[in-house]
């Protein structure tokens, strides 16, 4: 039994039936690709071409193609790595943390958000692998003895922790996402007309039939996966932050980094979810599923995490002064007023000031403003990582080695290229996979409106009786004082 709030807005609007949900979600999977999708894919593929060209230059001529120098050995690559991993975190937050908190509104956005997680992690993984210079030896990061001789990997190194964290995160997110997709693939399979579609979706659906026993196990698996994914997602960005925090570089050596990075990751991730969802709902006509309420709720999460990030920025400054460490103080004053002041200003404006506009209800419920705001946050979070990485490195203990960083066209090409890679994968997903979790949306469909169910079956002759379970009418809100 479900408690139905008399004050909350419905989760799915438009008085949909179960069959409508199937129709609306399967529509773009079954239809021929439309011109807008083709146009978007062409742009994405063009950017993917830029990616391949930049990777070719990097591998053929070496890391010298990038703008790195002796002082700044980490710049755009790690900035982009952290940016992409952070974006991925919102997907896991929606699918795992909100599942544990029983937030039913997650059902219509979790599929696309999880897909975003997986594609973002793929993009993120490109950077450390390419920075190795010889990616064909990437397996050396695993615990294999060096050149299969004697020496093992160093388990004390945060960079190795990252290997374990990112690979665990990627594979776990992938199985979580796929297990959720199986029942929906079955729906598409049972509707499929063409011979290729029939075989393809039969393969993908793993013979799912929707038997009650399987659903029972499926729910157990989802719950456990959500339970372990929650600490996992927190651990991943904690470990990413330790790449910096365990060093002795002023500006990096701070204990605040793990929570600060996790909040920042969710902040940027929700911004990206909003950007993608605002486009997806219009292109695929899913406004009844991804409603304005969803957008407002995501805006709220964005504002909360953005404010946490803002507090973290201020705390860093306070501690830099309070610690009385002159190198630390200098690092922070240099950040704000040194040669990279513009990056710092961009970070502060985009991450701390503009998200506060979400306090206004009008902004929260405005689609164009939300879209602009989400793009601003994405930009701001990129600058945050750039500020942390480059401004901390460019002036360290020895003034004789102070330097500036300027990206080459290849740096830009790889970054823009991963955006192409991301959108290529996302567009293919949106065309061939159900972008909304049909099964879970159907399960919450009934309990979405003010006064019980809208759904009464298709056939008036066989309209369901007011069924009762344990003496409680199915349609009535449960009063927890009486029935528990």
């Amino acid at each position, binding site marked *: 039994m479900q408690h139905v709030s008399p004050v909350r807005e419905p989760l799915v609007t438009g008085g949909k*039936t*179960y*069959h409508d949900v*199937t129709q609306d979600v399967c529509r773009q999977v079954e239809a021929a690709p439309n011109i807008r999708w083709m146009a978007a894919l062409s742009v994405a593929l063009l950017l993917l071409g830029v990616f391949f060209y930049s990777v070719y230059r990097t591998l053929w001529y070496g890391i010298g193609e990038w703008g790195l120098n002796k002082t700044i050995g980490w710049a755009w690559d790690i900035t982009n790595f952290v940016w992409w991993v952070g974006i991925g975190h919102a997907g896991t937050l929606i699918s795992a943390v909100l599942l544990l908190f029983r937030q039913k509104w997650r059902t219509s956005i979790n599929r696309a958000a999880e897909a975003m997680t997986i594609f973002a992690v793929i993009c993120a993984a490109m950077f450390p692998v390419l920075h190795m210079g010889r990616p064909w030896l990437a397996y050396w990061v695993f615990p294999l003895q060096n050149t299969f001789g*004697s*020496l*093992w990997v160093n*388990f*004390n190194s*945060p960079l*190795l*922790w990252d290997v*374990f964290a990112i*690979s*665990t995160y990627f*594979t*776990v997110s992938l199985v979580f996402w796929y*297990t959720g997709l*199986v029942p929906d693939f079955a*729906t598409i*399979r*049972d*509707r499929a007309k063409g011979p290729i579609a*029939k075989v393809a979706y*039969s*393969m993908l659906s*793993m*013979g*799912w*039939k*929707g*038997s*009650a*026993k399987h*659903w*029972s*196990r499926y*729910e*157990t*698996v989802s719950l*456990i*996966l959500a339970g*372990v994914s929650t*600490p*996992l997602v927190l*651990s991943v960005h904690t470990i990413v932050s330790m790449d910096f925090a365990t060093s002795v570089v002023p500006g990096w050596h701070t204990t605040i980094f793990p929570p600060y990075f996790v909040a920042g990751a969710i902040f940027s991730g929700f911004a990206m979810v909003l950007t993608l969802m605002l486009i997806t709902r219009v292109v695929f006509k899913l406004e009844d599923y991804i409603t304005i309420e969803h957008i407002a709720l995501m805006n709220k999460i964005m504002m909360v995490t953005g404010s946490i990030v803002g507090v973290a920025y201020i705390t860093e400054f306070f501690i830099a002064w309070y610690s009385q460490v002159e190198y630390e103080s200098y690092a922070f004053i240099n950040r704000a007023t040194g040669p990279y002041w513009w990056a710092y200003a961009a970070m502060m404006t985009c991450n701390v000031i503009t998200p506060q506009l979400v306090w206004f209800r009008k902004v929260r419920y405005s689609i164009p403003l939300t879209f602009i705001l989400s793009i601003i946050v994405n930009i701001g979070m990129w600058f945050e990582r750039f500020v942390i990485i480059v401004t901390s490195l460019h002036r360290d203990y020895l003034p004789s080695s102070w330097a500036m960083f300027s990206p080459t066209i290849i740096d830009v090409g790889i970054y823009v290229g991963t955006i192409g890679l991301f959108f290529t994968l996302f567009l293919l997903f949106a065309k061939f996979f159900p972008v909304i979790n*049909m*099964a*879970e949306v*159907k*399960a919450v469909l009934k309990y979405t409106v003010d006064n019980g169910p809208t759904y*009464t*079956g298709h056939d008036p002759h*066989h*309209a*369901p*009786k007011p*069924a*009762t*379970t344990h003496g409680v009418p199915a349609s009535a809100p449960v009063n927890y004082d009486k029935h528990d």
Partner: protein
Amino acid sequence: MTKRFALGIFEDEDVLLHAVENVREAGVKIYEVFTPFPIHGIDDALGIERSRLPIAAFFFGLTGLAFALWMQIYMLGFDWPMIIGGKPHIALPAFIPVSFELTVLFCCHGMVITFYTISKLYPRWKTPVLDVRSTDDKFVMAIEVNENTDMTKLTQILRENGASEVNQKEMSKF
């Protein structure tokens, strides 16, 4: 072996839930219920036991933890001890992140592989289903029947409990 099924088709999950209880009370054995989404309370109504997958997941996680600790302690502590950053060879606090990640890795993959195996879910060329609408918007109650079954009575029981259709279907492999 060919099996014959009587299929009660329901339009609503609450009607189905109620019907499951009544049909079982009437002494009819339900073969399986196929639904487009998970229905809360149907496990109890059908008498499906609580899944033991969480227990499996716990032990998979424990295996991962044990493996991770053994791996790190053996590699850095015994096989090739090195002093790194002035820390002891077996620097347990530094081993926490990898131990945690491998616990999660083993737990999730072990559980998911177990789930697919016990549910006999694997890629197939063709998937025969009793009613294709059961993955869309219909709730299908399947009851195995043979030539001795009183179909009129069974149909009546299903109809009385809110089934909108009662069909029969034969399946060669199910």
